[in-house]
């Protein structure tokens, strides 16, 4: 049973509270994932430490080579940010497609990452950008690439009873770089994706120098189609290559049969289509 809900005024205060409660406290920001869990009576924590109002976590700022996104930035704020739209397009797309307006107005990118769901739209985009997470703990700040943040379904490497995800850094898209997000769901709003993929491509003179493809939900954590990424290196940005990349990605992913989400075969087929379309989309907005 919840005993208290506290509002620290700074990140340090929040960390101190977490330490005080020895694992019995849990961070909350928007609460869109956590509040339904509270309703179910699930979580074993006793105290909420609310960081929603901390201004430091709410910024989106351009640094010299990177973009910093505070963990408290909501999906609506992400969607409406010009910086994100211009410099990290796949994240803009992902933010605009998830949930409903009401959920986007409250859900934060930090909460999205820490909930460690393989289908989380925002997180998938960040995987494609190879984002780096800045985490504050009692011992100071540490940084981990987002690929290391997911341990299992619902299990994050960031412990919300001990540490605070402060923000996310990703490289600003440069000339020759592009990104795209593709999402397929059973209806056009308020639906978890059957399959989604985020793609980042670096190119030079019409040929791909590197690519990152993040797909979910096809396993316990967001999935990087590394073989397909390797295949794309050095290849031209043509429809034929996109088609082949799609097929490779389809072979790489290994979703299980799901009565709700669809069969393994169907979802593998979808992966081929979405990767292909994602690459087409990247081509359309390469800087």
């Amino acid at each position, binding site marked *: 049973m919840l005993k208290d809900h506290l509002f620290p005024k700074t990140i340090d205060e929040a960390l101190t509270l977490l330490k005080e409660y020895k694992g019995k406290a849990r961070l909350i920001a928007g609460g869109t994932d956590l509040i339904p869990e509270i309703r179910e009576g699930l979580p074993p924590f006793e105290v909420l430490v609310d960081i929603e109002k901390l201004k430091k976590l709410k910024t989106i700022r351009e640094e010299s080579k990177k973009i910093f996104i505070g963990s408290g930035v909501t999906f609506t704020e992400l969607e409406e940010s010009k910086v994100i739209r211009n410099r990290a397009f796949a994240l803009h797309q992902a933010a605009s497609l998830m949930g409903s307006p009401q959920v986007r107005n409250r859900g934060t990118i930090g909460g999205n990452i820490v909930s460690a769901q393989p289908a989380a739209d925002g997180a998938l985009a960040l995987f494609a950008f190879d984002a780096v997470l800045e985490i504050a703990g009692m011992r100071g700040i540490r940084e981990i690439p987002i690929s290391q943040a997911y341990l299992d379904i619902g299990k994050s490497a960031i412990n919300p009873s001990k540490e605070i995800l402060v923000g996310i850094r990703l490289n600003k898209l440069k000339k020759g770089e592009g990104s795209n997000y593709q999402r*397929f769901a*059973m209806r*056009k*709003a308020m639906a978890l994706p059957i399959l989604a993929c985020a793609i980042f491509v670096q190119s030079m003179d019409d040929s791909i120098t590197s690519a990152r493809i993040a797909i979910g939900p096809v396993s316990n954590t967001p999935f990087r189609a590394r073989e397909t990424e390797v295949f794309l290196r050095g290849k031209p940005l043509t429809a034929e290559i996109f088609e082949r990349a799609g097929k490779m990605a389809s072979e790489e992913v290994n979703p299980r049969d799901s009565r709700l989400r*669809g069969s393994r075969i*169907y979802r593998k*087929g*979808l992966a081929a*289509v979405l990767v292909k379309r994602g690459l087409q989309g990247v081509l359309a907005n390469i800087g």
Partner: protein
Amino acid sequence: MTELKIIGKKVPRHDAIEKAFGLTCYADDFFMPGMLYGKVLRSQYPSAKIVSIDTSKAVRLKGVKAVLTAKDVPRNESVTRFGQTHAMGGGFEGLYRVLADKKVHFMGEAVALVAAETEEIAERALRMIHVEYQPLPCIFDPVEAMKPDTPQVEEGKPNIVTHFEVVKGEVEEGFAEADVIVEHTYRVPFVDHAYIEPESGLAWLDESGVINIRVSTQVIEHFRTVADVLDLPHNRVRVIGTYLGGGFGGKEDITVETFLALLTSRTGRPVKLTYTREESILSHSKRHPYVMIYKTGAKRDGRLTSLQAKLVSDAGAYVYLSPWVLLYSMVNAAGPYRIPHVRVDGYTVLTNNTFTSANRGFGAPQVCFAYESQMDELAKQLKMDPVEIRKINYLRKGETLATGQVLEHAVALRETTEKAFQAFGECTPGKGNLKIGRGIASGMTSYGRMIFLHDTSRSYVSIELDGSVTIRAGVQDIGGGQASSLCHIAAEVLGVPLEDIKVYIADTALTPLAGTTTATRQLYMSGNATLMAAREIRNTLLKKAGEMMKMDPQRLDLADKEVVDTQGSGKNLSLIDAVKACASDGLPLYHVGLFKAPFRNLTQYERIEGQVFPDFTFGTHAAEVAVDEETGEIQVLKLIACFDVGRAINPSSVEGQLEGGAIYGMGYGLMEEVIMEKGVTLTPSFSEYLLPTSMDVPDVETILIESGEGVGPFGAKGVGEPSVCSVAPAICNAVYDAIGVRIYDLPLTPEKIVKAIKEK
């Protein structure tokens, strides 16, 4: 006929005004001092013996005021009734069991009830009730359940609840004559009504010990069953129906009423019970899944010769309205077509799935999916246009259905199809993987109840001394303007503006009973009752006015709160003066209109023959879809609904029903399915059970035809259910047009499309 003043005009509904301000109180919006919260403990198995129930811990929890099980229910078993006054036989009454007793029959069946000071305490108490179950063999497939050696769902009763047949001519002869025959098996799933307002009610004992139940319900007449269950006289249970946040047939059965009555009776305190969404999806009735094996034959020129169908519906664990729904399917199974030879065999079968009952369309949407898919399949084989083949076979007024029911009123099918098709306009161009297709489907859906139910409705209308008008009617308003349409009718007849009319609804103690809000019957039945009552008062007033004005009452009319001379003499009399004169002479200024639907008694229920329904509403849906061949995604680009509505009492309301029904049908066609696996619901909330959102809907165009030949007031027909039935097959036919593959089971999921394309 004199021009109508309000009927036919787009007028705001009185309830819409209150709803826009957030003033309307729905069932969960009521609170009473000392109120307790009720909760229901539900079965953990789809089929199990209840070895023991230990409530001792729950009873001792502080704040718990009652814990009840089957042994605490005075009469735990009775029969399901829906306003029928006499025993029907033929499977029309099923077992109604309040709480599971020796066994549980479906997952989610109610096993125990708790009332406590807070919801939280009540929930904790539920967890403290220890039920020992011994799982029993189960059966989940209705076709399997028909076989002799399968587990019996209800001890001592065969799983096959009812078998009906329709026989016309000799089907084998018909198939021999046919030049083409198409045979397919169609399947439709469990779906949920998904009203946004979950089931809810609040009950209390008044000062004389009468059980009062305020509840979101389509049928206040359940007060009789509640009284029987509690072993009380009928006049000591009162049901007050609130304005519903949607019904669609899901609040047609008893939901929370009996639970509330038991808990308030035991505790002596008011008790509120509101289902969570998960509880609603888990435990309330679902639409019947059907397996439909169809064989249809036609001659080369397109004329149908023969139709044979076997229908098997999944009744779930309790009978409820399954035989009724099946009967509707039987009458509708051959569609609105002229077919010399027809044989339909229908079965409804018990399984350990969630029980199934009424859902908008009531057995008609299921068979419409089958027969309208069949029509397009025939068209394909005959290389005929789908519109043409239908026009050749549509029934006309005066002809009969396969059951022998004569279609006594307008049958506007040809017109609805032509107009719907015309409204398509220019075809949207396809692009790359997006293939565009168009399809149509026609439907016939009854309105008004089956005529052997001796359906009646009552409406009390009175005019007050100041000229304002009061209506009291047992009508349950599920959001379709059931209450407001009565006001429109009274306004028309009495010449009083809508603002001066007040309607009180749905109170078994205070309003004359109007019958169920089901079967698209309220406008027809209660509208007519109100019309009768208003006309009585009108006649009284005009007679008196005629005396006062020294004129023949025949030339007088009521308009704008005045008695006017229609022949232009300019003489008039204020309504209030006429009212006062009547009152002073002791003339009644009120009347209870009793409208009786025509009825006949069925002597047997095995073979469905003759008139069963008062009338049908005919219409056609036309759909244009874009199918993404790579992902299987179907987008409905255009959806046109053209219906003969008889007379549009309030065109806004009628359009609203057609638009809403179109999307209700579209959800059925594309995305809705309560997935039950071995009796377990895998779509427990609105995250998994998907309804169309605003971003999924096409622009729905509605085209109203007014033949004036409905049996409702002013020639109106009902549209609430007809608006749904032909949508899914229209979409399915459009998908076929787009990609050349047909899907035989709903919903048309993207995966099914991709799979079908691959297999082509």
